């Protein structure tokens, strides 16, 4: 560990906004991808369930 | 085999000549796009001389892509393409023939027109000659690589713009070496290496593209 204090850590020698901006962007992008994929799988399952309900209704 | 190839070339040329307007439009597009640039950046001769190679080459790329719409689409629409694919002839042969005809109607005239455009940009003799040589060696690649895009997007809605998106990144090496050759010439350096690379790219494309085009056609025509 070579940070004198948390202040120094967040400041990153003056270029904190670039460093944390970059890391923040990556974290945000990957988190968004995960959320979107989860939603997509959920939606696909829902569509499949509805399809099976419809075909059940047809055969009744 | 050569006979079959020539037959395909002759047929496509004949069809193109019957619709001369389509062919002329592409060449007009080429000239108009090049004319637009000085209107956008100003008439300073030194600057124009500097940017001329890039401008002419980019216009050539765009014109090549624009002309691809005619390559397979017409034959596809009236069922001829399917007939060609079902006939006993090797598909690569027919494809090469169509591309050769396509180049004669687009790449070759573009190369010829570039002489005039070089004058419009006040290019010196050596770079002008290199411009013509670079287009001569590079436009076959444009036809060959472009044909892959045309084959992949057969019959799709929005195919025109989609082809542009697919094919332009693949054109980058040709653009770089083509414009680079002329730049070298303008700077007094020999463009030999660039021109050889351009020629090499065209040869490689001629060897490999027919496979890809055949595969793409089989995917699209089902």
């Amino acid at each position, binding site marked *: *560990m070579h940070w004198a204090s948390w202040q120094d850590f967040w400041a990153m020698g003056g*270029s904190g906004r*670039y460093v944390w901006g970059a890391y923040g962007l*990556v974290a945000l992008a990957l988190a968004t991808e995960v959320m979107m994929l989860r939603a997509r799988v959920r939606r696909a399952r829902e569509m499949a369930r509805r399809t099976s309900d419809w075909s059940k209704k047809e055969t009744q | 085999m050569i006979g079959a190839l020539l037959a395909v070339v002759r047929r496509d040329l004949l069809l193109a000549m019957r619709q001369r307007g389509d062919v002329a439009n592409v060449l007009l597009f080429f000239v108009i796009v090049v004319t637009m640039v000085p209107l956008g950046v100003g008439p300073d001769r030194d600057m124009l001389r500097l940017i001329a190679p890039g401008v002419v080459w980019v216009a050539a790329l765009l014109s090549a892509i624009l002309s691809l719409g005619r390559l397979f689409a017409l034959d596809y629409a009236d069922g001829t393409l399917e007939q060609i694919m079902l006939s006993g002839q090797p598909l690569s042969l027919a494809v090469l023939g169509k591309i050769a005809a396509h180049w004669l109607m687009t790449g070759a005239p573009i190369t010829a027109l570039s002489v005039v455009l070089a004058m419009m940009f006040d290019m010196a003799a050596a770079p002008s000659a290199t411009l013509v040589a670079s287009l001569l060696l590079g436009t076959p690649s444009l036809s060959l690589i472009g044909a*892959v895009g045309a084959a992949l997007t057969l019959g799709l809605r929005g195919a025109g713009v989609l082809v542009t998106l697919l094919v332009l990144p693949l054109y980058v090496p040709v653009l770089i070496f083509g414009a680079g050759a002329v730049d070298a010439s303008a700077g007094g350096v020999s463009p030999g290496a660039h021109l050889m690379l351009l020629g090499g790219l065209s040869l490689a494309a001629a060897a490999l593209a027919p496979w890809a085009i055949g595969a793409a056609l089989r*995917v699209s025509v089902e």
Partner: protein
Amino acid sequence: MQTQAIRPLKFGLHRFAAPPEFYRLAGRLIPWFGSAAALLAAAALYLGFFVAPTDFQQGEVYRIIFIHVPAAWMAMFIYAVMAFWAGFGMAFNTRMSSMWACAMAPTGALMAFLALWTGALWGRPTWGAYWAWDGRMTSTLILLFLYIGFMALHGAIDDPRRADRAAGVLALVGVVNLPIIYFSVQWWNSLHQGASVSLTRAPSMAVTMLEAMFVMTLAFWMYSIAASLARARAILLEREKRSSWVQAVAQG
């Protein structure tokens, strides 16, 4: 519903070429790859921020490379893997292979996108410009266009089977062109820059920096596999929603 004769492979792996098996296997694997990604990322972040020293020339801002380089590598790697599976699918006519290639594409594109932006954020404080048309960044931009072209072509074709195969041909053409594009763009950049320094040259690297970068690359790799598996599951459910196995999954 058509079934395909699946050529038997060693260890019975060929059964995962069938959608329901793949779906189940993918579902079991995702948590493992996700956890691996999280752990490796945590380790890499620790190495990158608390072990790697301050750089002599670039100070602290160089630490962006710990995500910039892994993203760039993954963008390239995923494209190559995509092309491989597309080619495999065309050669052996297996549906799952081509579909798997499509599942990877958006993640690869995202990696390219992130590489470009982190590169810009690194470039601004270090060399004064967000974007400088240097060789590697320009090549990565073109790679992003190749990804987008792949996804656009796939999206423009209604029939999923034709879409998979057309995009597959495009991916193969792209992967053959990629080295040529990289070479020509590098060359183009060196030619026009004259004698100036390569803008994205990393600082001469201490071993700890390389370690952090390597571990983060592994983390991104694990993440990419997990994301692709999840997307593959979604695609399977969407395409085969009428089949009985999907209906069973949806109910259960």
